[in-house]
């Protein structure tokens, strides 16, 4: 019998569902993670997934364009050269983010709506100063030459174990928004969990309204409840639901969760077997816990844009919010493993570090293929984002708040007696 390396999958076409455009770099890495998740969960629906689909379906739905130093989606993230030869990634997606620009540049005369003026201001400053000040301001920023500040996956808190009977259907409370956290919840739903998506009255998940094609894919089958976090009774009801849950997924900045009055660590210590998945941009502890991070700038902080420049000679974004889908897959896998183990724990996932790990592992796996894909990605600037076949909907997409009475019955009782 010839000896075969057990942990090295044979190279194969990674993008079996791809129907057009260049391969998304790291899709092969995502394939391998999905394969592991499919084996561990014994889910045929997860086995049928591939990395290119999960990483490309948002850009495919939105008919995005590969834009080089401008993000593929709304173009809200831009990579700009700095005075000291670095590259600074700045994401400005809300009008109020632009109001922070005078403080970022220390210049009240900056034309905040003018991207050329912003690029000129960036070019007149050093990268590290911009990154430090941008993070102080709570802007999603990154340097193409930084190293992630936190480990990719970190057990933050442990609590008592719980014995789950065979066939127990896990209850997952998904407090997260946008992409990474909801994708983790979606994969757990595919693995058989009962998933409840919680949205805040004042901060709903805007992807529901603004990108329903993607929302439906990653939130299908989830129950939907709506909670007013300013209302103490509603919040107490939600905490009661969390105490009955097996898994919680959230993607708040740690202090935002504390401000809401939800103490994740205390719950993990108190509720046997509770698995709490905390998704952050750059880490949940120390100074990095205060930084914001979204998929594109976290990909830059992971070194992906630097890798693109090294392979191709041109700087740019790789994929669409690439750290989001990579993190969603990893969080689902770690969450599933924790459930099997039985011990309560809070696990932190740092998107920038997960993307950096994916890059390092893919390089170790097949550096030549990765370089080819990065070069092809760089050469595809101006082309349409890769299209992927649309996945079927297996579950209903519940209207916002449709399941609040079912999961938070106290609220319904309270309303019915007009208390």
């Amino acid at each position, binding site marked *: 019998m010839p000896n075969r390396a057990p942990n090295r999958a044979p190279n194969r076409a990674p993008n079996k569902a791809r129907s057009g455009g260049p391969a998304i770099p790291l899709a092969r890495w995502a394939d391998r993670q999905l394969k592991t998740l499919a084996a561990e969960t014994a889910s045929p629906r997860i086995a049928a997934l591939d990395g290119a689909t999960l990483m490309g379906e*948002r850009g495919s739905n*939105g008919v995005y364009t590969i834009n080089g130093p401008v*993000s593929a*989606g*709304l173009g*809200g*993230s831009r990579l700009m050269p700095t005075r000291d030869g670095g590259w600074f990634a700045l*994401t400005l*997606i*809300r009008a*109020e983010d632009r*109001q*922070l620009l*005078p*403080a*970022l*540049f*220390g*210049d*009240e005369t900056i034309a905040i709506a003018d991207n050329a003026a912003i690029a000129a201001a960036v070019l007149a400053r050093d990268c590290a100063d911009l990154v430090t*000040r941008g993070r*102080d*301001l*709570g802007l*999603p920023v990154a340097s193409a030459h930084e190293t992630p500040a936190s480990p990719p996956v970190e057990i933050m808190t442990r609590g008592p174990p719980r014995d789950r009977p065979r066939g127990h259907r896990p209850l997952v409370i998904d407090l997260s*928004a*946008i992409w990474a956290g909801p994708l983790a919840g979606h994969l757990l739903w595919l693995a058989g969990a009962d998933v409840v998506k919680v949205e805040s009255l*004042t*901060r*709903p*998940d*805007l*992807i529901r*309204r*603004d*990108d329903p094609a*993607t*929302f439906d894919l990653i939130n299908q089958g989830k129950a939907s409840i709506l909670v007013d976090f300013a209302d103490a009774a509603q919040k107490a009801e939600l905490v009661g639901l969390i105490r009955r849950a097996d898994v919680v997924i959230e993607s708040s*900045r740690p*202090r*935002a969760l504390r*401000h809401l009055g939800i103490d994740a660590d205390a719950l993990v210590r108190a509720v046997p077997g509770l698995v709490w998945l905390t998704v952050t941009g750059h880490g949940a502890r120390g100074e990095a816990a*205060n930084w914001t991070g*979204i*998929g*594109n700038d976290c990909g830059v902080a992971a070194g992906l844009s630097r890798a693109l420049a090294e392979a191709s000679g041109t700087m740019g974004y790789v994929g669409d*919010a690439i750290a989001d889908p990579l993190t969603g897959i990893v969080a689902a896998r770690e969450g599933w493993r924790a459930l099997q183990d039985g011990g309560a724990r809070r696990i932190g996932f740092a998107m920038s570090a997960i993307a950096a790990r994916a890059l390092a592992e893919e390089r170790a796996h097949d550096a030549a293929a990765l370089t080819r894909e990065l070069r092809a990605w760089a050469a595809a600037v101006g082309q349409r984002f890769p299209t992927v076949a649309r996945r079927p909907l297996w579950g209903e997409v519940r209207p916002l708040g449709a399941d609040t009475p079912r999961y938070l019955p106290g609220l319904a009782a309270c309303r019915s007696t007009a208390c």
Partner: protein
Amino acid sequence: MKPGTRLKSAACDTEVMVIRSGDGTIECGGAPMGEAKPAEPAPLSPDFSAGTLMGKRYVDADGKYELLCVKPGKGSLSVDGVALVIKDAKPLPASD
């Protein structure tokens, strides 16, 4: 006060970054804030002791002043004796 200036409370641990500012006196805990901490801490005024929250943006009624809390403390923020209030965070859009 120039945008981007970091101001420290004389009465507590609070530090803010100036996002927007007029010519009034920015205070914390009832005492004027400065770029350096005074040698002797100022007393914390009971009227301005509700505390500041890390990462929150504080504004006046006219939107002339906006301060970002970069280090929390026991004092609360005011301009010329008028308390500032927390500006609500907006949700993130579905794409960037």
